[in-house]
């Protein structure tokens, strides 16, 4: 395996990137965070838990280098070092792709646990890119988490699904089962458009914080560069011209304990909770 015996023991942290709802930016966030942490010198691996809907390798631009995958390793058909893909651009960054031909049932509990134990020995950060939903795939992705990044869009259904996932983290994670310190929760608001918030079409940062009561890690503005980055296989954080890239960089810095002021949010003038309540209720 990579780097044997360099350090006696690494204090590793498993981070799940989760949301409940689909299409909110989990994979984009996973890719950006993995790249951001690795750029800061932390040895990081990002795992695709979305078995059957393999996307992470595309977003990371390594789809043509996939030979073995997560499920092969779980089943013992390949070992970890065969399946991990080393990023060509960023040192310390590894991608652990998943299978496109299997489904979530292939995520066997013991097998996943064994893989996670192995990864913990070698990596500082293990990022689990969760599938949408609250079924087996999402449950498995969050089970081992020490820390969770809850990706939320500023709209009612996304906020509610995030709320549900936060509840599941508090009840069904390994830490909850073993009655250890609870999973650390971070809220990441993505696809945020201050203009649309002003027009009352989106929930504001304060509305979302108020509903979820989870510390805010960052606000990622809605940006065309995100789509471009996904299509070209370059994590958006590597694009210094992109507001989303810079916002992700801030979020990674905050995740590591740095103080950075929130950007990309206009001071809001009007709260729209009354409107939200009316709609949520109907």
């Amino acid at each position, binding site marked *: 395996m990579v780097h044997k015996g360099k350090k006696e023991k690494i204090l590793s942290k498993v981070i799940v990137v989760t949301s409940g709802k689909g299409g909110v930016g989990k994979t984009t966030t996973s890719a950006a965070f993995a790249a951001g942490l690795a750029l800061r010198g932390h040895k990081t691996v990002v795992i695709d838990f979305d078995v059957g809907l393999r996307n992470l390798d595309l977003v990371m631009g390594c789809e043509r280098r996939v030979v073995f995958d997560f499920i092969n390793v779980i089943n013992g058909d390949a070992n970890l070092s065969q399946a991990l893909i080393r990023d060509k651009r960023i040192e310390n960054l590894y991608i652990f792709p998943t299978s496109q031909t299997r489904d979530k049932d292939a995520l066997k509990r013991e097998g996943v646990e064994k893989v996670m134990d192995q990864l913990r020995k070698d990596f500082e950060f293990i990022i689990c890119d969760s599938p949408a939903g609250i079924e087996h795939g999402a449950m498995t992705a969050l089970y081992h988490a020490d820390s969770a990044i809850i990706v939320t869009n500023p709209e009612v259904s996304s906020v*509610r699904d995030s709320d549900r996932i936060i509840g599941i983290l508090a009840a069904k994670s390994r830490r909850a089962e073993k009655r250890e310190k609870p999973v650390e929760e971070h809220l990441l608001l993505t696809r945020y458009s201050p203009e649309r918030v002003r027009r009352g079409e989106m929930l504001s940062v304060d509305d979302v914080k108020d509903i979820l009561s989870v510390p805010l890690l960052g606000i990622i503005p809605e940006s065309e560069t995100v789509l471009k980055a996904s299509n070209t296989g370059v994590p958006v954080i590597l694009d210094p011209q992109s507001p989303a890239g810079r916002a992700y960089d801030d979020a990674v810095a905050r995740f590591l304990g740095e103080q950075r002021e929130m950007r990309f949010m206009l001071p809001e003038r009007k709260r729209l909770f009354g409107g939200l309540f009316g709609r949520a209720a109907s």
Partner: protein
Amino acid sequence: MGAANRVQGGIFTLMVVKIGDPYDPDLERELAEQVALSPGFFADAPVVLDLKDSLGCTSVADYTALRQLLRRHGMIPVGVQNASALQLRAAKSVDLSAFSGAAGGARRPIERAPAAPERAADRPAAERSSESRTRLVTQPVRSGTQIYAKGGDLVVVAPVSAGAELIADGHIHVYGALRGRAIAGAAGDITARIFAHRFEAELVSVAGRYIVSDAIPPEHRSQPAQVALIDDRLCILPGWGNGRGAAEG
């Protein structure tokens, strides 16, 4: 189960039906009206017959007729109160027991009492006497979570999300935003109330009556409010008043 545990005490709230003339046609009409207001409430509900103002009910035939009438409206007579010696003798012969008349209790113009007493029967009296049955929740109650405070009150010192469900046999207090459902008096306690520091509930219910947020007057939204059953109607009251004003209205 030891002999000592075989028979235990239980405290139940029972509905009292005032009987005048057991053959009075108004009786059936009034019962039907009452039941129509909240049909579920009277389903198989045990009732006590208050005979204070009754000169009838002195024969087995009287009771049989009464029993049939009450049964048609879902009620099951289990006993009598304020019965004369003659009335009591006939009552005993049709297996109705004697309840000691509640002083003043039966005099009130509107008798209010309890849904689902059979649920209350699950709860031995001893269980409630000793320690506090109040359940305290300090973490946010997330969407999809259900918390039940059996046999007591539920106190939440955190927000309750939309899609979460609080259930208590007693009162529910939320010292935060209440955005989910709150079901108080789940075992039929009509005196149970719901208090919310910030009232944005999806649904509130006391002793089986409920209101959904669509039907909640907008002036209560995001305000401190309480929910109580007053004269059999579920009322939302602003703030922490005792609710008497609304009771008169």
